């Protein structure tokens, strides 16, 4: 589904990604772990098409198509979703109306007409229940005055509405208490299907107790230096990152 080959990227003059290789197949959950500043969030932004970063070398294939020249919205239309670490506040636009705008923008890109209002409401109701979202929440302005937990839950709600092929969860666990974490993880697990995939970016192993990865990758200084199964996450939790630094001679 996603195939990243020797990806290099920079922001202004700062080289951040220094040769990433990663392959994700349908049905898989991958986790990328690493200390602050290792380039984890940059990688998720580059996959989603943030213009601030310039890809200087390498390629990103999504279902066989090279992505680096595509706009962020075009990548979204192809089924890539990024759950933001810091979702943006949009005053005056309710969660419901935002969702309607988003769903219809994606339908339009596929040559489809707007989703009928009753169908939209049914879908919103169904997906909000999945994330235990209160109806009042849906008529609030998007992310405005939301708590950290509400923001993240809202991100996964959007993911549920859009049903992407590849979901990238960037530090979704940061700022979550244990109940919110459980709800968010539960939502992600219920959305899992044989034909979609998830990439979890996280600093801590905690989230991976709830969303169990098939593969864990360790990122250091813009490169994936070690890959393994879920047990690698426990090892990192226990021993920290220093032993890997020594192992790879970084």
């Amino acid at each position, binding site marked *: 589904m996603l195939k990243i080959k020797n990806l290099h990227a920079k922001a202004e003059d700062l080289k951040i990604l220094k040769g990433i290789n990663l392959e994700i197949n349908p049905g898989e959950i991958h986790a990328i772990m690493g200390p602050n500043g290792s380039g984890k969030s940059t990688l998720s*932004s580059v996959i*989603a*098409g*943030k*213009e*601030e970063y310039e890809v200087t070398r390498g390629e990103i294939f999504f279902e066989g198509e090279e992505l680096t020249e595509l*706009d*962020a*919205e075009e*990548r*979204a*239309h192809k089924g890539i*979703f*990024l759950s*933001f670490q*810091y*979702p*943006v506040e*949009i*005053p*005056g*636009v*309710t969660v419901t*109306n935002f969702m*309607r*705008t*988003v769903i219809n*923008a*994606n339908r339009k*890109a596929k040559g489809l007409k707007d989703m009928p209002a009753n169908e939209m409401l049914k879908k919103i109701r169904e997906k909000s229940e999945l994330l235990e979202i209160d109806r009042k929440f849906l008529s609030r302005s998007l992310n405005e005055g939301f708590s950290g937990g509400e923001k993240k839950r809202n991100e996964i709600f*959007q993911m549920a509405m*859009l049903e992407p092929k590849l979901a990238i969860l960037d530090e979704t666990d940061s700022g979550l208490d244990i109940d919110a974490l459980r709800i968010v993880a539960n939502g992600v697990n219920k959305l899992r299907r044989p034909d979609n995939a998830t990439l979890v970016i996280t600093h801590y192993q905690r989230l991976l107790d709830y969303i169990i990865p098939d593969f864990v990758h360790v990122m250091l200084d813009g490169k994936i230096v070690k890959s393994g199964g879920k047990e690698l996450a426990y090892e990192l939790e226990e021993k920290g990152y220093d032993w890997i630094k020594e192992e790879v001679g970084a």
Partner: protein
Amino acid sequence: MELKDKLLSSFLAFEENVDVNTDLHDIRSQAIKDFEVMGFPTKKQEAWKYTSLNKVLKHDYTVFPKKEDTIDYRDVEKYFIDDIDTYKIVFIDGIYASHLSATTHEKIDACLMSSALNSSKYKPIIDNYFNTVAPKESLTSLNTAFSREGAFINIPKNTLAEKPIQVINFSTGNESALLVQPRNLIVVGENSQVQIIERHQSLTDHPVLTNSVTEIYADKRAIVDYYKIQNDNHSASLIDNTFIEQHRESVCSVHTFSFGGNLTRNNLNFYQKGERIDSTLKGITIIGGKQHVDHNTLVHHIEPNCESHQDYKGVFAESSTGVFNGKIIVNKEAQKTNAFQANNNILLDDKATINSKPQLEIFADDVKCSHGCTIGQLDDEALFYLRSRGIPMKEASALLMYAFANNVLESVKIPELKARITKIIALKLGVSVGYSI
């Protein structure tokens, strides 16, 4: 002939058609003398530093248009807010259009200035309030000199105007360039309440210059909400002079929505003559091309324990220019004043300009005054967020601009008007953000 000279000689012609043996005409005669001395404002004057009238004054304007009666309701329907019941005072080229209007004398007066000026019934009101709120400035004096028509709204004390009042000035400029000078007087009695929607709309591409003066007198505990829709053709220029005198515990707001027009200058003055007064001045400006919108506001805090709230948002595309000049004066006696002012702007293109200038003159020592001005671009992170959800660049920008301007819309009390403004904004931005947001 220069416009000034033409106007001075036109005054002599004007005098042949009005009763010159009245108190009113003494006021007019004095006003034309004042205008003769002051002339049109120039960029040398501090308050006009960023707005030049030179180009606008070059046209050979007709000062006395002929009555235009070929316009049918269907031609202009779209300029009305018609999904609610309202009173309507409508003018075409400055002349009253009875077939488009719905005036009243029941409980309140929502009618014509010409009838108020010429009727003995209204003489006490005219004597007490006409030309008492407006300051003696050149453009106001020019308007006063030729004052004869406009909206007259009189709300007696303890009265709620049950329907909003629409004041619409259409212009055709059928005789090429046209100068119109509406003169409105609004007197709101003690404990009374009124909502007014005002619009200037040109129906042709001929140059039109409107020099409008509106005086509003809000008595004790009166509540006045005034909404200005400025979405005119690019051949039309507007100088709007609105002056509000407030008395004890009155609450007045003016919202100005500036989307259209060639050159628009808003002179908006609030005078607080009593305690515990609340004044609100808000505006949204969204312009492009070579459009120019200038907000020149004054809030004069004269007595203690009053508040004023100013919030102006501007989005400027292409080579459009904006000006915000917000003056707050707090007299020595006006202790415990709370005066807030915010002016936030987004420049979408390199050639777009905004000149933002707060002026605070505070003579009292126990006051809270704040002012803030920002000039920026759309937030890249927010744009990326929306685009990563599949919303294309253009719609994403529009959504952010809508969100940026939104809190100004929140205080609009007429839902149908709010919906209309949202629709105009959506059209202006070229997207469909309108539905029930």
